[in-house]
């Protein structure tokens, strides 16, 4: 495991070095840019809080992927699942404009969980029933559902009093309590941590978690041992969908107060990177999500206070993504080579 951490540290150092090289190349005031890129997120409470807040959905999407990877199923539908979860939560809130904040909020989250859980679970079901590749079907379903969500946001649920492509705002009572004003950071951060702990406990200590892990490591062995393996195509997919749905729902209640067109774009994909950095460890997802959020916040700060574009964060994230993927592929290849 130590080599794993050393490897990750090296990957990060190398990626940061490349970012610095890029800044030196692209910026007229590289010193200032580098300062804001690396320290910008800590210069004031607003930046810091927003950085932490943008890590929250990544924890959920990272967990969604980690759970699936641990069971050797691949959920590439994160994008659509987060988005649909957000819309479902919005729709529930709009349908219950005057409900009690806790009951209504809970109903909204339940809606998000159910919609996205079913959406992802379907791919697992297809896999179980007809051996349809869950990677392809989850991706296709997700791509299709994004268009459907777009339709609702810009059509039936559109807010005519707003120039944004967004739904009507949800009731004020649903807004999650801010915990670090003036930033957007809210109690969903606690939910994220609690969820990571719960998922970690579930995988390590429960009956279903054990069977899921065994299926993930060796399906033949699991079947031989008397585990009904087909069940574990559906469950990890549905669980991942539910976690993605939570990410979307909490974004609506905590950050945006409505569904805005494309508001969750990229979160599903970044979840994959987060899970890879965390090596599919549910608790490891928290620091991995923070790292991703930190890079993004740094780039935003550098963009506002200096002369580089936001794309530099995307480039840094891609570096890390490539290196981490290459590293895990390499260790996988080495593991395979051993008889």
């Amino acid at each position, binding site marked *: 495991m130590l080599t794993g951490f050393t490897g990750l540290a090296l990957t990060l150092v190398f990626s940061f070095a490349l970012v610095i090289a890029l800044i030196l190349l692209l910026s007229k005031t590289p010193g200032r840019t580098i300062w804001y890129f690396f320290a910008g997120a800590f210069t004031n409470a607003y930046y810091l809080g927003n950085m932490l807040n943008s890590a929250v959905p990544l924890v959920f999407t990272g967990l969604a992927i980690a759970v699936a990877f641990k069971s050797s199923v691949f959920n590439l539908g994160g994008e659509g699942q987060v988005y649909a979860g957000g819309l479902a939560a919005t729709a529930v809130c709009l349908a219950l404009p005057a409900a009690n904040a806790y009951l209504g909020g809970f109903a909204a989250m339940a809606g998000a969980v159910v919609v996205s859980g079913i959406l992802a679970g379907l791919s697992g079901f297809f896999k179980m029933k007809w051996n349809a590749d869950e990677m392809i079907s989850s991706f296709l379903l997700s791509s299709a559902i994004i268009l459907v969500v777009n339709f609702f946001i810009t059509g039936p649920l559109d807010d005519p009093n707003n120039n944004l492509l967004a739904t009507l705002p949800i009731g004020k009572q649903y807004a999650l309590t801010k915990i670090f004003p003036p930033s957007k950071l809210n109690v969903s951060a606690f939910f994220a941590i609690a969820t990571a702990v719960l998922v970690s406990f579930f995988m390590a*200590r*429960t*009956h*279903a978690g*054990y*069977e899921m*892990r*065994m299926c993930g*490591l*060796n399906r*033949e*062995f*699991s*079947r*031989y*041992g*008397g*585990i*009904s393996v087909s069940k574990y195509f559906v469950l990890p997919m549905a669980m991942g969908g539910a976690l993605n749905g939570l990410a979307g729902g909490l974004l609506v209640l905590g950050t945006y107060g409505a569904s805005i067109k494309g508001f969750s774009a990229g979160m599903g994909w970044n979840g994959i990177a987060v899970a890879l950095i965390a090596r599919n460890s549910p608790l490891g997802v928290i620091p991995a999500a923070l790292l991703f959020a930190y890079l993004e916040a740094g780039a935003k700060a550098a963009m506002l206070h200096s002369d580089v574009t936001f794309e530099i964060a995307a480039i840094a994230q891609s570096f890390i993504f490539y290196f981490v993927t290459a590293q895990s592929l390499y260790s996988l290849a080495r*593991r395979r080579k051993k008889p």
Partner: protein
Amino acid sequence: MPYLEMKGVTKRYSDDLLANDAIDFSVEKQEIHAVVGENGAGKSTLMKILYGLEQPDAGTINLDGARVVIHSPLDANRLGIGMVHQHFKLIPDFTVAENVALGAEPVRGGLFIDRSAAHARIGKVIESHGFAVDPTARVAELTVGQMQQVEIVKMLYRKAELLILDEPTSVLTEQEIRRLFDTLRSLRRNGKTCIIITHKLHEVKEISDRVTVMRKGRVVAVRDTAGVDKAELSRLMVGKSVLFQFEREKKACGSPVLQLEGVSLRRRASGRPLLDTVSLTVRSCEIVGVAGVSGNGLGELEDVVSGLRRIESGRILHNGEDISGLSTATLREKGLAYVPADRLHRGASLHSTVTENMIVSNHHGFLRAGFLAGARIQQFAERLTRSFSIDGAPQVPIGTLSGGNIQKVILARELASASNLLIVAEPTWGLDVASSQFVYEKILEMRSAGAGILLISSNLDEILGIADTIAVMYRGRIVAILPNAPDLSKERIGEYMLGLREDFARQTDAERGVRK
């Protein structure tokens, strides 16, 4: 001066794993030299170093009087060293000739493969050594023995002078072993040198001129084969004498525990029967050994009795109850105990801990309100580790254990949940003498306790050693069911295994048409 001389060869894999410790090993020209030792004695490592698959940390290799450095199998081939691996490295869809020429094709005009030249050269190799393979046949159609011949031809085609054979007899029938030994003798006559790695001491006695015995990474003895007997070799290998004979008390066999009635299974595409109306009964206190060459239905038999594969017709009964359609999960609940032949993939999950491996079939019994009861599981794992003297802590990944210890974990797990039926397939494949002995003792204990045991094995010594009744399979059919009497010879079973003999006439479709 010896033909091959390895001096002070040392290979360390990790701090506590010294695979080869200053090995001195030498082979004379035109000699058949056996290398014996238990699992983990370092035989394979030494041969891998000689073949360029591993680099030694120290030591030198001299071949034909000259110092050589072997970085890769290609280097080894250039030096005239060839290796026949335990698991063949052939492409099933290619012909024999294509497989042999692969990587060393004669080229015409700098671009095209000269097929006719390749065929001519391969034909010459096959003819001059008396191999019985057709160069135009597809490898997928060959028997295991023929595939091994192709591997040898491949090496001779590459002008190998020194052949390394890694456990060449482990997959062969008695007749095929005869054939292989004839081939080796003919190679020796033609000036070739052979190194043969093996576990089987009578083969050492039969085929080799000299023998090197390894133990725990060191060479403990080099002897002229004629001057040692099997007991001494085995003492040298394990460091203590082991008994090969088992006390098999005859017990009154009780009621049928497992019954197969006309069980059939077809290959999906071709319709060729994989299991053809197999009928077999295992009674309590009885070990029924099913013998056969791989590819003749042993694996399929294993799959259907464990519920991993659905049968197409016939019935399987456990204690009189029809279990034909039941899944492995349901059979596990009914107390299925099954030690699979494929222990590294089916029998164990290598990246999971020993403990996790130990509870796969019975983890339902360790639940408290849906949660795994950690303390009880730990106690269970520690108890099994102790009672089966498993060399490895319960919390390490099972893949870090030796083959023998992995098998002990599997056996411990299966025996812990065994009811009155145990299915065991190839239980000692690749295990050393001491581990095999241990496995046999455990199986015999189960028998004494009244269980019925189905032993599926291609190792005739094993079947003759412990089975009460022997069934032989050929092309998916049971061709003989024989009581294990002292006059039953390996050769006779071998004839059944190769389809030269059969006791039961093949049923016509009309005869078995009742349950189609």
